[in-house]
């Protein structure tokens, strides 16, 4: 393939990766908050959290992106497409991660929490030092597949004008009339990033093996 075309595809991959990475990390933060709210005994917290999760898991990402992109300007907030895309992806993955993490939090043995309670950890300290590490460890494989899902879902953000890998491939295919090598290259680039994420996941799992062989 023409090296100039290849360069363009690699640059677009950079957008895809950056957008996905920002969304996954921000989504983890939002997801933690939402999972905690879902588990709260206060309905004023758990109900909105549940509604958030059912909305963002139930409505197609494409619709969410178009909603955010069109809704916010209508209330006076003018967003560049890339920001709308990041917000859409973040909220979507946050909903999935929240549901996963909720299971993880429920899987933290009660005795470990009681032990922390007995040595005087405050609820906030207990959350960050005991519940979160154990819940994340329990759900790490699901969180890694969620990261790969989001990478693939990021191909949808072209609807709000962001030229990421898929959109760049479309544009190049249309202008060069040589779709096959271009889409094949795009596919290969996605796989390369998938491997990167999987490798990162393995490294994290090794780090959190806590002595287990």
């Amino acid at each position, binding site marked *: 393939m023409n090296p100039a075309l290849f360069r363009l595809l690699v640059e677009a991959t950079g957008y895809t990766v950056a957008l996905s990475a920002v969304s996954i990390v921000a989504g983890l933060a939002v997801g933690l908050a939402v999972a905690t709210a879902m588990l709260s005994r206060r309905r004023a917290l758990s109900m909105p959290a549940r509604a958030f999760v059912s909305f963002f898991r139930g409505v197609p990402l494409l619709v969410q992106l178009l909603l955010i992109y069109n809704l916010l300007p209508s209330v006076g907030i003018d967003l560049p497409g890339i920001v709308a895309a990041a917000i859409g992806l973040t909220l979507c993955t946050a909903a999935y991660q929240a549901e996963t993490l909720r299971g993880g939090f429920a899987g933290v*043995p009660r*005795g*470990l929490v*009681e*032990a*922390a*309670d*007995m*040595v*005087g*950890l*405050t*609820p906030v*300290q207990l959350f960050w*030092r*005991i519940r979160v*590490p*154990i819940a994340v*460890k329990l759900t790490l494989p699901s969180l890694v597949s969620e990261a790969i899902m989001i990478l693939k879902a990021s191909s949808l953000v072209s609807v709000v004008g962001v030229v990421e890998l898929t959109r760049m491939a479309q544009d190049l295919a249309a202008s060069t009339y040589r779709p096959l090598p271009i889409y094949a290259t795009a596919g290969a680039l996605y796989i390369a990033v998938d491997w990167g994420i999987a490798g990162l996941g393995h490294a994290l799992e090794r780090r*959190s093996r*806590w*002595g*287990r062989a």
Partner: protein
Amino acid sequence: MTTAAATVGAALSVRGLVKRFGDHEVLSGIDLDVPAGAVTCLVGPSGSGKSTLLRCMAFLEEASAGTVLVGGEPLGFVDTPEGRRRLPAARIRAVRSGIGMVFQQFNLWPHMTALGNVAAALRVVRRLERAEAEARAMAQLRTVGLEGRAGHYPSQLSGGQQQRVAIARALALEPRLMLFDEPTSSLDPELTGEVLNVMRRLAADGMTMVVVSHEIGFAASVGQQVAFLDGGRILLRGTPQEVFRKPRHPRLDQFLDTYLDRGAAMLV
């Protein structure tokens, strides 16, 4: 309701303690003093309420009625003329800081090493520098004979070693009182000895201890006070000699028979 005044000098006093789970009354008015510097053993058949009583003493379980005083300070609830009032969480943590708890299942945090488990609260709660916290934690591990395992994760330790780390974790905060809920029940028989030895040494050093145990031998030899629970009440209380002396209360006899049968069954 009239309740006896708490004994002066008791490390922990329980007065009129009632605990219900739904309609099920598990503790029906417990009065007990835990004398400072002595070992109090709670024995009794399965389901008699030993764990529930111990957990109420630590406020891991909220009593339905009655009071728990730790060094004279109410833990969890305080009785006022208007009724029972729950104390603020910070107050509960402050009173509870005098209590160390050891669980049947060890409950070590799996993502921290032995040293990390012992040092965690020193750093997070006591806000010591890392070096200082780890030095103290290491000293504590030494007292349970595990300084050589400091860098091991719980999954890399035997049950007996895990329980000794758990004891070190509780001791690191210098509690005035240690509560043990069947600390050897989930251990292989050959590992119970190392844990009981640590507990014997603690007792000899004058630590105030409340021990729920099926190790009748330990209760009889180390305990200064034995309370026999049955059906949510303290049926017998006194020195081991007084409680285990013949002729025995029929319920205690029955309990000891079952206990000995179980022991004998394991030998067959």
